[in-house]
């Protein structure tokens, strides 16, 4: 029998699964806390949300939340969540996964889920590398950064996630960081209430792998989020992330359009009339 812990969020977490596996200084704990805090503040019915994740460090988030939850295969959280959303429109799937999972191996699913406007919230922890496998470079790693598979510096161009998801058709697109906890939590609350495909990129430090290899301490990484990130209203295509330069955060897209389930229901009405 696990010890009962008196905490206002204890009902929102699988206390028997804690402590979590994440490294000291990792931002995923803050993302997880922001998510359950948002559910708590909204008094969201926990039986109406399914937390889904892919593979990697962020993929473990689904295992700590006291909702129905599913840890899928690498990159496949979004099609899995599409199956949920279209089968049971009363349920809001919330995907918490990493940048590599969602934009490399799962990139195709991401653009198509956004294009269809599946009603779901995607919280993407962007730590600029593949943390779980040992900090290899990925589709978000800035140019010249050193990783075990880019020992001479990264030669590839990174994706601008907010621009990519906006152009794919998402109805809500935001970027925050684990330093901006209040804005992050409020953004998650907005995404939970939004009827449509909502995407929140969360910049998050990977201290053990990526940080150490690039000579950034955990405090340096958190300080950087504070000092280089500026809340501005710009077109998503202007929100590239370049090392040493200002990073634009905030809300990029907030529009309304019929969700995929709305359209499916209309189709049923049209074919049965």
């Amino acid at each position, binding site marked *: 029998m696990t010890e009962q812990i008196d905490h206002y969020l204890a009902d929102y977490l*699988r206390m*028997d*699964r804690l402590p979590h596996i994440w490294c000291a200084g990792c931002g995923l704990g803050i993302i997880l806390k922001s998510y359950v805090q948002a559910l708590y503040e909204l008094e969201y019915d*926990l*039986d*109406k949300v*399914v937390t*889904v994740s892919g593979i990697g460090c962020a993929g473990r988030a*689904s*295992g700590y939340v*006291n*909702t*129905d*939850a*599913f*840890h*899928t*295969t690498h990159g*496949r959280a*979004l*099609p*899995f*969540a*599409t*199956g*949920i959303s*279209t*089968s*049971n429109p*009363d*349920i809001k799937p919330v995907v918490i996964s990493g940048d590599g999972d969602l934009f490399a191996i799962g990139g*195709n*699913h991401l653009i*198509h889920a956004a294009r269809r406007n599946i009603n779901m919230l995607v919280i993407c922890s962007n730590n600029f590398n593949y943390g779980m496998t040992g900090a290899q470079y990925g589709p978000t790693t800035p140019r010249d950064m050193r990783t075990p598979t880019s020992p001479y510096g990264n030669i590839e161009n990174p994706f601008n996630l907010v621009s990519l998801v906006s152009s794919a058709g998402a109805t809500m697109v935001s970027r925050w960081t684990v330093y901006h906890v209040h804005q992050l939590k409020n953004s998650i609350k907005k995404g939970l209430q939004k009827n449509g495909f909502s995407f929140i990129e969360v910049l998050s430090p990977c201290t053990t792998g990526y940080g150490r290899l690039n000579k950034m301490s955990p405090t340096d990484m958190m300080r950087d989020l504070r000092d280089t990130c500026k809340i501005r209203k710009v077109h998503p295509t202007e929100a590239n992330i370049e090392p040493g330069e200002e990073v634009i955060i905030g809300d990029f897209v907030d529009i309304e359009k019929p969700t995929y389930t709305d359209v*499916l229901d209309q*189709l*049923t009405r*049209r*074919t*049965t009339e």
Partner: protein
Amino acid sequence: MSEAIPTGKHFVHGDWACAEGAIAAGCGYFAAYPITPATEISEHIASRFPQLGRRFVQFEDEIGAIASVIGASFSGMKAMTATSGPGISLMLENIGLAVMTEAPCVIVNVMRGGPSTGQPTMGAQADVMQCRWGAHGDVEIIALAPQSVQECFDLTVHAFNLSEEYRTPVFVLSDANIGHMYEKLEVPVAEEIEIVNRKKPQVFPPDYKPYEADESMVPAMACFGEGYRFYSTGLTHNEMGYPDMSVETQDKLVRRLCDKIRRNKKKITMTEETMTEDCEVLVVAYGVTARSAATAIQMARSEGINAGLLRLITLWPFPDWKIEEVAENVKGVVVAEMNYGQLVREVERSVKPTPVEFIPKLGENPSSPDEILEKIRGLAK
């Protein structure tokens, strides 16, 4: 046609029958990516599902299709996908996930010639081993092989029932010949179609352990939104569904996943025997090839050779016990299949040391009755 079950006689192709079988079985979610020769299943579902308020999604690829099918299955739906060999190659990762998380679902493979892109419009029976061994790790799979349009309907219904009973993906291994062949289909009235539904938990949510099984070895299945708040993962997990990397948990889990099918082999496997009581030469065949074999044994009988046919309806789990029994007193066994040697390996293993003659057939057509007859004659000498 908006009624759920089109009771009566139809002149249709096998893909149509598969789609209607799914509808009759209560399939509420279907996802697929277009691929020859399975596309007609999607096309028929696309026209029927909206009228029935069911969900059809055409995915960006087969990987997404099967992943969504698992999501739908855990949302309480009976769910299916249909594809051909190249699509199965892409799906294997999540077929493993369905086995591991015990997601009931049906996968139709309308087989075509391979490897790779192969012969898209031409039939083959060359994905039999892929179906069995394609997913990584230790898995058991259930696979059914229809030989007619009627069986495309009947076995699709049955595939859903098996998937619900054993909480496992079930394959329907059709092929381009049957998928595109027009024949009579007789759809029974709804009351005559047996429907099996997954076992639901009988405990209150705090007491529910999503991967705790009784002697049936199949855990009761809660679905999303029912208040059980369960967690499921493709990682090795304990009875709570939580990741557990211990040797003991891996051993216990993998044994249960495999044994729930292995130990029910005799209950699951279906075969059909024709003139096997007195046969000296036994033909083993399945799917479209069994139709040629049925003619071949008649031809042999008219020549005075006592030939019999054992048609395999269930390919996996392999009905070795039945073959052993039927082949006990025969001089030899003929195996005909549309590949370069797949299920014949299982037959050889089952009837050892009885001689086995194999007829490989590559490219569109099954073996002809004459080709099978020739081998029967050889073994009867």
